[in-house]
């Protein structure tokens, strides 16, 4: 087998050295009746060429050749050759969690740079070395708010990503936390009256997403102020990181839970992505996940180490802040490289292109009779429209035009029948937008 570096005779020599007659003997502690006699029924072994062929065959059964207007938490953005080149270097790809600082400075410094970038993006003071994704980061942010405030009621905006809400529900089901959902108003923002009504002294946190799942920007310093008045924390979830290039940072939030997929990570049918938690310095010891910190060696040379480890499971065990063990180091590195390449100007430009294309698309769409904008609050690269026909029907027909239509909101929001969430990023070309428009005109045209 090409991955195994031993010749049969070397194996025999090693067995002889051990003093075992057969490799069978090495498994002597496994009761014989539990030992497999027959080989496992697995396909393979495949050569490299066969492997590539198998996956190419699968890739042809997917969406190649379609243009897409899907967002809803996962966004198609430009990637870069340099990012791929860097994260495929064996020294990054095949290294372990940097517990041995002296021979892990590469990963550690990169994490430190990642933490810095995340703070700059979110306007927060500290950020961790990454979480699994936006949904788990948001959940961990809520658990963290509970630890900080020692309160156990959490208010969650109904416009928070439906799947994020699901994950939160799964995690808190067996805790003391109670979760209440706060609806959204006509403009797509959180319903302030409803919020006022529920925002009492026993509330640990309010969780909003911004831009929220309906596309509208929901964070504002005023919102933070309201929440703080009740002694609660404001948790802001950001699933479209690129927005932060042009949209005001949630600096007054207490905890920001970010999904970093937009920073150079492929959609990859569900993962891996990279979540982040950013917060105030004063809460750092309540924050889950790994942290890289700056320090020095005996000669005073700057170096980096994983620090504040006492929060983590391998030391706290049942008292840990979370059971998280792995983070998403390689994805965080990809984001670090990608953001470094974009730089200050690149990110701003990228964000503005998204903004322009989305507004162009909205303008063109609403020219079509029967289509109107659903919410009028400001948005970034995603917006909801109302169609004259059921979204499923429209989308099914769009497929014949090789177009994956906008996301139907009704499945997650029963009251939003015929509502569709359109996503347009820098990689959506004007041509694709115009094709969508003409396809829609055909699709929506009354059958003769």
């Amino acid at each position, binding site marked *: 087998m090409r991955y195994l570096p031993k010749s049969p005779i070397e194996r025999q020599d090693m067995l002889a050295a051990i003093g075992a007659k057969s490799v069978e003997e090495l498994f002597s502690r*496994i009761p014989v009746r539990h030992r497999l006699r027959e080989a496992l029924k697995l396909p393979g072994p495949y050569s490299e060429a066969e492997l590539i062929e198998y996956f190419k065959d699968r890739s042809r059964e997917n969406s190649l050749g379609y243009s897409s207007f899907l967002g809803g938490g996962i966004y198609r953005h430009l990637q870069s050759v340099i990012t791929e080149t860097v994260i495929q270097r064996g020294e*990054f790809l095949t290294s372990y969690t940097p517990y041995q600082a002296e021979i892990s*400075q590469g990963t550690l410094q990169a994490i430190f740079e990642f933490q810095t970038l995340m703070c700059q993006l979110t306007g927060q003071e500290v950020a961790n070395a990454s979480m699994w994704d936006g949904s788990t980061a948001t959940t961990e942010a809520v658990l963290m708010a509970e630890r900080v405030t020692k309160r156990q009621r959490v208010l969650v905006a109904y416009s928070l990503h439906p799947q994020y809400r699901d994950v939160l529900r799964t995690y808190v089901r067996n805790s003391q936390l109670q979760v209440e959902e706060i609806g959204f108003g006509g403009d797509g923002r959180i319903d302030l009256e409803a919020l006022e009504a529920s925002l009492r002294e026993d509330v640990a946190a309010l969780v909003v997403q911004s831009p929220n799942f309906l596309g509208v920007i929901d964070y504002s310093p005023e919102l933070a102020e309201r929440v703080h008045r009740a002694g609660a924390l404001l948790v802001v979830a950001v699933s479209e990181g690129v927005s932060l290039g042009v949209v005001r940072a949630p600096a007054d939030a207490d905890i920001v839970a970010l999904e970093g997929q937009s920073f150079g990570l492929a959609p990859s049918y569900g993962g891996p992505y990279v979540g982040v938690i950013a917060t105030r310095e004063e809460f750092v010891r309540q924050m889950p996940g790994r942290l890289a910190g700056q320090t020095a060696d005996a000669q005073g040379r700057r170096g980096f180490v994983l620090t504040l480890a006492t929060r983590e499971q391998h030391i706290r065990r049942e008292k840990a802040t979370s059971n998280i063990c792995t983070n998403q180091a390689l994805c965080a590195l990809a984001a670090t490289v990608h953001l470094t390449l974009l730089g200050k100007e690149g990110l701003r430009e990228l964000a503005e292109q998204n903004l322009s294309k989305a507004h162009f698309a909205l303008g063109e769409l609403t020219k079509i009779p029967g289509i109107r904008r659903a919410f009028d609050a400001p948005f970034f690269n995603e917006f909801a429209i109302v169609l004259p026909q059921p979204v499923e029907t429209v989308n099914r027909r769009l497929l014949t035009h090789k177009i994956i239509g906008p996301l139907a909101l009704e499945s997650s929001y029963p009251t939003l029948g015929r509502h569709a969430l359109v996503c347009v990023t820098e990689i959506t070309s004007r041509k694709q937008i115009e094709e969508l428009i003409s396809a829609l005109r055909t699709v929506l045209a009354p059958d003769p």
Partner: protein
Amino acid sequence: MGKIRKASTHVNQNEGLIFEKSSPGKRAFDLPQLDVPAVDPQKALGVHYRAGGVGGFPEVSEIEALRHFTRLSTWNYAIDLGMYPLGSCTMKYNPRVNELVARLDGIATEHPLQPEDLSKGCLRILRLLETCLLEITGMDAITLQPAAGAQGELTGLLLIRAYLQSQGNARSKVLVPDSAHGTNPATAVMSGYLVENVKSDSDGQIDVERLTEQVTDDVAALMITNPSTLGIFEQRISEIAEILHTRGAFLYMDGANMNALAGVTRPGDFGVDVMHLNLHKTFSTPHGGGGPGAGPVAMKKILEPFRPVPVLVEKEEGELALDEARPRSIGRVKAFSGNFGVLVRALAYILAYGPGIRQATEDAVLNANYIRKHLEGIFELRYSLPSMHEVVFSDALQKQKGINTMDIAKRLIDYGFHPYTTAFPLIVPGALMIEPTESESKEECDLFIEAMRAIAQEAALVPELVKQAPHSTRIGRLDEVAAARKPVLRWKGSDSSA
């Protein structure tokens, strides 16, 4: 001082933080021409507009960016450079073809919310991986959703809890052996259970007699790692399973050490009810400096109805689909359909071996025992039962000279190896936990043995040399106390850089 054959000192490029290289106006990225009218962000966003972009973001050129990260990379040790004997971490070779297939157009480019008719390829990949993992574990059902081992553990316990609740009593306790990995107790608490420790006997095996007393009607499950973190197979495992089952409790297995079992025996056959697999361990998806991973959970039929959504199902027409409507499900543990990219790599790894995966297991166990044989007596072997894929020594013999496991580990760096796992499991004071994996040649194992023997001699003759180690790295041992007392967790401008 011992002869260092594998490594020699080499020049390292010094490299500051990327922010320190930044100079306004430089750029490393050009966007395509905007092909629609530009909107005025100020107008479009109003009060939400972020004037002036992100303060502090670096501004460098492409070559500087590439060099920066390339230089950083040279400060890392990696499997591609040599043996990584980290016990319980299973640092094995990460085949490059797996990286290629995970990046194919039509694989990496697929959106998790796209229509199922346009995702047949992805769904078939998921289904084949499920089938393979079930065959390897001997279980009945599986979920590929969990994002990592720790989340797999949580999912597993939530499944157990959901089942018990459906029977009217969720029970209150989860038993965890004192040799367990730290995630076990942490997870048990997260899933709403109290943790009770189970003592190991003098052989480091579960004390079955005591266990029998501990398993009351209030115990939901025992979380066991098999082989244990000592690298020893729990011989009375099916007996343990029976004890639990007669009390209506479950046997949860931490699959961290599946590397020692694949193709040789199956947890499903020796009484395990539910287990998670760390795809980044046994199934070689890259650790990438600490993730991403994936933690599928395999289970017996009885737990199947509670699997987290979405669940991969086959519709009447044989079409695969992701089913969200599962009334008895524990819910969703992660947004979207699992860490698909990681799952792809794991499948590629399994297909490359096919049934031959047994050979990988045999070689892993062979390597561990070969190393054990040559280091026995030189390092104390606290628990002497036969080893599987890893062996745990203690630093007792070196302690006499004031050398502890961490010192030895650090000195190993000078010999060109990554340290083994230190100070774990907790039941072995001053543990040296060594797992070579199947990826190491006899030659590499011999070099490692030679290095360890040399260090043992140094510890006896020139202890200071070992205590001060490493001597050949870019920087010496770092001041972790200072780092923890006055945490510096981000770059705050040149003032904070030492």
